[in-house]
């Protein structure tokens, strides 16, 4: 019941007029960038990082959290009406949602996704409030060796387990490590990877990396494939009020989606793809209207994945706030915002920064309420945003990319680095390398190195700390299973199929 007291205090922080305004601003901006293809929460929060020099931590995190949640709501609108997922987490929503819109039930699809997001987002946020203190108690026992092993596990899950190829995911991650190591080594003061350039002594700013990969890379990619054809916006038809039958078909998928999404998001693996696909598969299996899947669009196939998506977005905040472990690009950039305030997220955060954390969690509840209002009665506004023509949209994105980058130190070198990273981002899109592990590797790599060196200093250079500590060994074993497991499994399957004489039970 301690949590309820903290939450009440959090609401007293979040309910000040100024913080409510920040929340409103964040959710509005978040919905807008979620709706616009080519813009995402990671890029937007990166561009707004300079705000951390201007306002109190509570205000900027309420703003960032609003953007983060808002982008999830806005992304589904684009998926449903345009069939181009606004966010990677809403790919599944496009499957059934766009079909519903085409068969004249776009209103119901938008309604079930917004209300489902609200239900699951609220459940997920409650999950954060009640789970975070539990994880903290557990995490207080962590030493540097355990932290390092936990980070190794997170590295493997975000790059190798999720995504289409573990080699390409790990390549992105290691590229992130290299970028993260550029600059002065914090423990010895030695410059690393600077190629003798004084401009690189401060390292590559996360703003430049995020803007380069997500804005410049995305613009080049969209320019390169103008021949690929455009998706048509489906005009919004159908009432935004769901019928009793539609409510009846939606509420169970919402709850199931939340139950799938939150735990997966809260694990040090993150990612919204797995829970949304899992929810889609389950709803397809359980639905009494299977014939609607893949034809006219089934409402269950929108309600479940949308709920799973929002609950997992909330879940990602648990490892982020309690362990300082970001498992998505957006969370990694939020972590760098904490660093900008000189705050280290970790088990002590809840006690040392109680106002900040509980105010943030309370503001997430408020954000959910604002978002469901923004995304249902005001949906027409966002549909209009979809009509911004591509030339002006992408040219505008590049103008803001310049502001964000050049504003850091007015150095043209920064623009050169931005463009090089943009070119890399373009190639990564063309050749199916995931980009999020670069940002995670860049932010989390140096933290992992610090923990590694701390552990080795305590153990006097004895490597065995990583496998003699039981918890550390468990985490490393899990990481190894995550990396090698799928390959071993595929090998066994391959053997089994090739040799009919080795069919199990035939021995």
């Amino acid at each position, binding site marked *: 019941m301690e949590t309820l007291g903290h939450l009440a205090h959090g609401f007293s922080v979040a309910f000040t007029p100024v913080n409510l305004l920040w929340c409103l601003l964040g959710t509005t901006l978040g919905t807008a960038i979620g709706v616009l293809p080519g813009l995402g929460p990671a890029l937007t929060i990166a561009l707004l990082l*300079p*705000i951390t020099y*201007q306002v109190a931590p509570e205000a900027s995190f309420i703003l960032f959290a609003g953007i983060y949640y808002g982008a999830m709501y806005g992304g589904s609108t684009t998926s449903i009406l345009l069939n181009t997922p606004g966010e990677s987490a809403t790919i599944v929503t496009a499957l059934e949602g766009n079909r519903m819109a085409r068969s004249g039930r776009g209103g119901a699809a938008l309604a079930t996704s917004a209300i489902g997001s609200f239900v699951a987002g609220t459940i997920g946020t409650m999950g954060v409030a009640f789970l975070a203190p539990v994880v903290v108690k557990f995490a207080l026992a962590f030493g540097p060796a355990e932290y390092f092993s936990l980070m190794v596990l997170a590295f493997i899950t975000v790059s190798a387990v999720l995504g289409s190829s573990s*080699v*390409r995911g*790990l*390549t992105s991650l*290691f*590229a992130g*490590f*290299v970028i993260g*190591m550029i600059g002065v*080594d914090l*423990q*010895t003061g*030695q*410059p*690393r*990877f600077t*190629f003798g350039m004084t401009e690189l002594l401060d390292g590559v700013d996360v703003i430049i990396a995020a803007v380069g990969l997500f804005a410049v890379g995305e*613009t*080049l990619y*969209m*320019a*390169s*494939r*103008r*021949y*690929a054809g455009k998706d048509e916006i489906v005009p919004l038809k159908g009432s935004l009020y769901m019928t009793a039958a539609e409510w009846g078909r939606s509420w169970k998928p919402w709850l199931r989606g939340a139950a799938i999404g939150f735990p997966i998001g809260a694990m040090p693996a993150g990612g919204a793809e797995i829970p949304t696909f899992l929810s889609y598969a389950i709803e397809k299996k359980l639905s009494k209207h299977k014939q609607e899947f893949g034809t006219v669009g089934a409402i269950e196939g929108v309600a479940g994945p949308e709920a799973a998506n929002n609950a997992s977005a909330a879940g990602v905040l648990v490892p982020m706030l309690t362990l300082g472990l970001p498992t998505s690009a957006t969370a990694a950039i939020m972590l760098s915002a904490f660093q900008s305030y000189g705050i280290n997220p970790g088990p002590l955060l809840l006690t040392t920064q109680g106002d900040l954390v509980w105010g943030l969690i309370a503001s997430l509840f408020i954000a959910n309420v604002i978002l469901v209002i923004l995304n249902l009665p005001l949906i027409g506004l966002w549909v209009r945003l979809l009509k911004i*023509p*591509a*030339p*002006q949209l*992408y*040219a*505008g994105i*590049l*103008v*803001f990319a*310049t*502001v964000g980058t*050049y*504003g*850091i130190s*007015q150095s*043209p070198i920064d*623009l*050169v680095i931005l*463009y090089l990273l*943009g070119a890399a981002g373009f190639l990564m899109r*063309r*050749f*199916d390398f995931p980009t999020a592990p670069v940002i995670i590797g860049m932010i989390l790599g140096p933290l992992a*190195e610090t923990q*590694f*060196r701390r552990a*080795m*200093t305590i153990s*006097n*250079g004895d490597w065995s700390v990583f496998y003699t500590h039981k918890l550390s060994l468990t985490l490393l074993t899990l990481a190894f299973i995550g990396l090698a497991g799928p390959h071993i499994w595929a090998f066994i399957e391959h053997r089994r199929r090739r040799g009919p004489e080795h069919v199990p039970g035939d021995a």
Partner: protein
Amino acid sequence: MSTSDQQAAPSRLAVPELLIGIGLLACAGAVAWQTLAIPVSPLYSKVGPTVFPYLTMVGLVVLSLLLILAALRGGWQPEEEKETPTDWKAMGFVVIGLIANLLLIQPLGFTAASVIMFVLVCYGFGSKRTLRDVVLGLILALAAYFGFARALGVNIGAGFIENQLNAVIDAFITMLRG
């Protein structure tokens, strides 16, 4: 479908993927070169600033070899990407816009450089109404400059346009106060 067909298809060498693998190997080489250049103080001989760079380098070498191997076996680029022809003209205009911005931002200031980039990128993306794009670019750049730079306290390079407008605004503020 004969078995020989099935084997012939994936064994073709994929040149772009091979170049990516080789490029990554070169990056690993650069990492090794820069790691050797890190001066190591004997005080930190246990786990110094070079241990992680070396681990990263080894990782990159292994990964680039795996990528080269995949390229030799036919590459991995998704079919959908392979089939979409690259619009070099559109990309070219975007790149020219970016380079123009880089070269002009110091001599002309942020707003003017941004307008030029905006127009070039719009043209690359197929916009034919250049004059309208100039106006839109100017409005957006000024909004970005004043909304972002002045509100967030970020210092963006000011040129002729910004200085004139700043002078006007300052004069206006003085007038209001006076």
